């Protein structure tokens, strides 16, 4: 059967091209998504900093018990990294078999390059070995990592920016080690600088030679559990050093969740294309059935053909997908999503799964299509061969109606709720509506043909009459076109424009909400003293220090939210968060202000206590004093700085917002201030929104890339189907012309059909996109009118027109140039 399949396939490769194209691009997409996912999953952050420790105790994520039994628990990475009590050190030392216990106390340091400061005792955990000089002994002594030493030599003095302040230190030694670059102080000095008394970023335990490490780890674990900390051993130790915004999480999110949608889309497109190609060959297959082939043989023939096409598609698609992955990796590295040396798994197990998956998918689609053909008797098949069967599955209809019901419920729910619940149900509604359209497509097509027929007849006369009839007759064949276009317009129109809306809103909220006219910004961080100095500058009316951090808020699933920690003094002059209830001035050491979106999502009201977790996992219950509108531009939670002290990774602020008196000349003083804090720059506030915009544009780039890939593939599927359908109409068009339809009328008929089909797709897709966009934008910004750029309208309408022209109008135009009598004898 495979030989016969290969023979049939080779001779009609032209008509199989559409299927092959859908399979090839599909396997390329799956390969790329699989490679991203696999790279993320397989990534093993090997121990660096703590390589010499046998057991590491740290707090890096927070676990939430499942809301209902049976669900898995939610783990959220702590955005600021947690700390563990140094009191554990003595307890660990009591455990038999322990040789060394050291706490790692961390301090932000800039030497010849960015580094992390530690206490000298933690050098044993890596281990760092001194290559020149000695260990630090006094408060001003440092041992510098050879990688950031610059020209530092033992005995020389060097200037270091430590915790935001520039100071001279005496270099006592230069050391070599692995992991991120380090600078070592004495333990006492490091503890003093870190300003987190009694707590350390991690505690490492080294076992005595010959000790039972497993037993030791168990004993350590028991003590650590009592403090809520996690114990890491073996390869897991690397996770104790992990950055919360890690590259592997990003890769897993892209490859996993987005890959899931791509998989659904590929499945739907492949099934549709193979189904249509089998339907176009009904006559051949009916003949085979009549003369000799059993239903099983016909099924095997179609499945074998599909498998062969799947293999051919994989042969081209897999390398293409791998190339795409390499391109994506370069782009990710260039845009800073992943570090340059990140080990990507390109061509691993996932590639095999993608290729096998597409072959299986093709075979399954072939089987389903074949069953439709072989279920009917050969006599019927021969008779029906030229006309499409009217049957469409009852099950499909029932599921379609149920999905539509679900979508409507989600729409009502999304409209009735607010906050992130509304956003989530709007996105759920988008998926449900698109799925419902896919399931109900045959009925939608038939119904719209019925509804549009009078209008088409009125506008295009007899050509319109024929167009209406054709739309009705081809209702089933055109389901792929309808679904693909609705999906393209629905997804593209909502998710793509949503990025623009969020970007625009964020930037405009930030710009309008910033009353300060000068800003001191520092990528390396500003110490607490800077804001006081700024306030002393003559002509400065108010100065507010701003620390960007994150907190973990409860909700359907606990997640981290952007937060702003400010010094409330004079904040009314520098920031306008557009408070809608309460007063921001009431912000004291026991209170918090939240955005309307966050208040709605978490059900917080002014005067009540809001319970959430700080960035290092510390639970807090603060009184809500204000609810504000401009959450997108500044962050959903605004905290007084006092609350976060000791709970962020570094005790440093990101910027100081400065409001000057009208006409005051502060340029010189600002420049002096910036000079006193190395790494900082004084900028006019206007420049800051632009920085924000370019940061946002980066994440929008990723979202747009992903959605572009999906929409592109869906459009390809639509184009594919339309070309297949157009070329299959040779005989019909010739017949029409022989019975007296002029070329002009035939063309008008095609135009009317296209306008009918594409118009319906645009209206449904546009409706779904508009519904989603309005709901989400309303929830996010409070304004129900979404912003859609002119270019957006042009590309949606233009793209659809190009699709219609390229895939139907032009091919049919060519067919119409051939004298009709040449085609009438042609088999379809």
């Amino acid at each position, binding site marked *: 059967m495979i030989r016969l399949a290969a023979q049939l396939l080779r001779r009609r490769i032209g008509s199989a091209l559409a299927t092959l194209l859908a399979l090839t691009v599909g396997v390329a997409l799956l390969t790329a998504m699989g490679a991203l996912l696999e790279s993320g999953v397989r990534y093993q952050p090997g121990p660096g900093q703590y390589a010499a420790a046998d057991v590491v105790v740290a707090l890096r994520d927070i676990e939430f018990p499942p809301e209902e039994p049976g669900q898995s628990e939610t783990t959220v990475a702590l955005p600021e990294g947690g700390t563990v009590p140094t009191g554990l050190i003595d307890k660990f030392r009591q455990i038999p078999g322990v040789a060394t216990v050291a706490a790692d106390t961390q301090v932000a340091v800039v030497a010849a390059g960015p580094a992390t400061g530690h206490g000298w005792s933690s050098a044993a955990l890596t281990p760092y070995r001194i290559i020149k000089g000695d260990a630090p002994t006094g408060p001003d002594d440092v041992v510098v990592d050879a990688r950031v030493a610059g020209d530092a030599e033992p005995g020389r003095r060097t200037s270091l920016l430590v915790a935001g302040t520039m100071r001279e230190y005496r270099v006592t030694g230069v050391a070599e080690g692995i992991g991120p670059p380090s600078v070592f102080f004495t333990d006492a000095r490091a503890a003093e600088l870190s300003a987190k008394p009694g707590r350390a970023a991690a505690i490492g335990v080294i076992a005595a030679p010959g000790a039972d490490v497993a037993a030791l780890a168990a004993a350590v674990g028991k003590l650590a559990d009592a403090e809520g900390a996690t114990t890491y051993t073996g390869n897991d130790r690397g996770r104790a050093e992990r950055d919360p915004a890690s590259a592997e999480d990003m890769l897993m999110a892209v490859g996993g969740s987005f890959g899931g949608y791509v998989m659904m889309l590929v499945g739907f497109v492949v099934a549709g294309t193979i189904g249509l190609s089998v339907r176009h060959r009904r006559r051949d297959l009916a003949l085979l059935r009549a003369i000799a082939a059993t239903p099983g043989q016909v099924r095997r023939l179609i499945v074998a053909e599909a498998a062969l096409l799947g293999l051919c598609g994989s042969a081209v698609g897999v390398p293409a997908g791998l190339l795409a992955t390499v391109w994506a990796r370069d782009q990710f590295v260039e845009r800073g999503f992943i570090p340059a040396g990140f080990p990507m798994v390109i061509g691993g197990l996932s590639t095999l799964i993608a290729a096998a998956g597409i072959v299986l998918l093709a075979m399954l689609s072939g089987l389903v299509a074949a069953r439709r053909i072989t279920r009917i*008797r050969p006599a019927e098949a021969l008779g029906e061969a030229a006309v499409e069967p009217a049957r469409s599955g009852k099950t499909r209809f029932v599921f379609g109606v149920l999905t539509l019901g679900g979508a409507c419920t989600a729409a009502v729910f999304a409209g009735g709720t607010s906050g992130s619940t509304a956003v989530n149900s709007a996105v759920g509604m988008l998926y449900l509506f698109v799925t419902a359209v896919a399931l109900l497509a045959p009925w939608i097509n038939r119904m719209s043909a019925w509804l549009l027929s009078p209008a088409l007849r009125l506008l295009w006369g007899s050509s319109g009459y024929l167009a209406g009839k054709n739309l009705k007759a081809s209702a089933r064949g055109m389901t792929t076109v309808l679904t693909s276009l609705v999906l393209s317009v629905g997804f593209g129109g909502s998710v793509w424009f949503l990025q623009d809306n969020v970007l625009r809103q964020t930037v405009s909220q930030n710009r309008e909400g910033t009353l300060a006219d000068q800003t001191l910004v520092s990528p390396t961080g500003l110490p607490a003293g800077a804001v006081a100095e700024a306030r002393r500058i003559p002509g400065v009316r108010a100065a507010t220090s701003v620390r960007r951090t994150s907190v973990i808020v409860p909700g359907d699933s606990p997640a981290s939210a952007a937060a702003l920690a400010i010094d409330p003094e004079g904040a009314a002059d520098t920031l306008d968060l557009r408070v809608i209830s309460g007063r921001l001035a009431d912000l004291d050491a026991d209170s918090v202000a939240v955005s309307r979106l966050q208040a709605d999502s978490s059900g917080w009201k002014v005067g009540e206590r809001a319970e959430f977790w700080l960035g290092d996992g510390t639970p807090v219950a603060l009184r809500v004093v204000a609810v504000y509108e401009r959450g997108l531009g500044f962050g959903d939670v605004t905290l007084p700085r006092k609350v976060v002290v000791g709970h962020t990774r570094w005790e440093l602020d990101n910027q100081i917002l400065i409001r000057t008196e009208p006409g005051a000349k502060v340029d010189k003083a600002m420049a002096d201030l910036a000079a006193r804090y190395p790494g900082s720059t004084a900028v006019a506030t206007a420049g800051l929104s632009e920085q924000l915009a370019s940061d946002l544009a980066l994440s929008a780039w990723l979202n747009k890339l992903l959605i572009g890939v999906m929409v592109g593939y869906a459009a390809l599927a639509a184009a594919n189907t339309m070309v297949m359908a157009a070329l299959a109409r040779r005989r019909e068009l010739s017949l029409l012309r022989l019975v007296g339809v002029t070329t002009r009328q035939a063309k008008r008929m095609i135009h009317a059909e296209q306008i009918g089909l594409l118009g319906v797709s645009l209206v449904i897709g546009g409706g779904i996109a508009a519904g989603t966009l309005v709901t989400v934008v309303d929830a996010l910004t409070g304004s129900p009118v979404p912003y859609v750029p002119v270019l957006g309208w042009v590309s949606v309408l233009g793209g659809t027109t190009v699709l219609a022209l390229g895939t139907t109008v032009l091919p049919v135009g060519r067919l119409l140039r051939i004298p009709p009598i040449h085609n009438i004898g042609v088999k379809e």
Partner: protein
Amino acid sequence: MRKAARIQEQESISSDGAIAVRVEQLTRVYGGEGQAVTALAGVDASFGRGTFTAVMGPSGSGKSTLLQTAAGLDRPTSGRVWIGATELSQLSETTLTKLRRTEIGFVFQAFNLIGALTVEENILLPLRLSNVRPDRRWLAEVIERVGLGQRLRHRPSALSGGQQQRVAIARALAMRPEVIFCDEPTGALDTQTAAEVLALLRAVVDEQGQTVIMVTHDPVAASYADRVMVLADGRIVRDMPQPGANRIAEELAFLGRPARAVR
């Protein structure tokens, strides 16, 4: 090899009798309640081995339905069909297909051939699907008889309509079936080509002892048969030895008028 042996066995059973095809009280009703259409209203007939029968009748008389149900392409609403000694009503779709493959040949009005396969591959298709090794001598004889020796490597699209029908006949003969059913085999051909195709069918009956049952509305085509059976409204209204084309035409004309007058 085992399959081939079984086919031989079946052939030996069916060759015991002189009847190739028999139908008994055959009815076929299309459509559901309310709008049911009776295509066959109880037809009894036998077709002897080595005979050439023309089935005629006006449009809608049920002649194509008779052919399709007798050939196992469609299932009767009631009644029974025998091909040789085998009764079809109890057979599964797959067994029925296998029976069609070995015992029945088909020639349709048009689109008889798979466009992607060459002439030779089309002829060999039933053998290939049943995994039977072709009998080279017999095939050479069949190809010689239909006169397509030069065109074996061509695709159907390169052949004329008459040549395509000859390929279809060769394919039908390839398995040495019990009976060949033809549905308007000359309907799409000009007079000259039609005559060639009909002469070929006549010859396989006379020389190979093949049984042929042919649906046609053309009295000239029917004049090549031994026996003419005329259907009207799902019943046999005439069953006679072939009386010549003119006489057939008269019979048909006579049949047509009162039928229309009644309506």
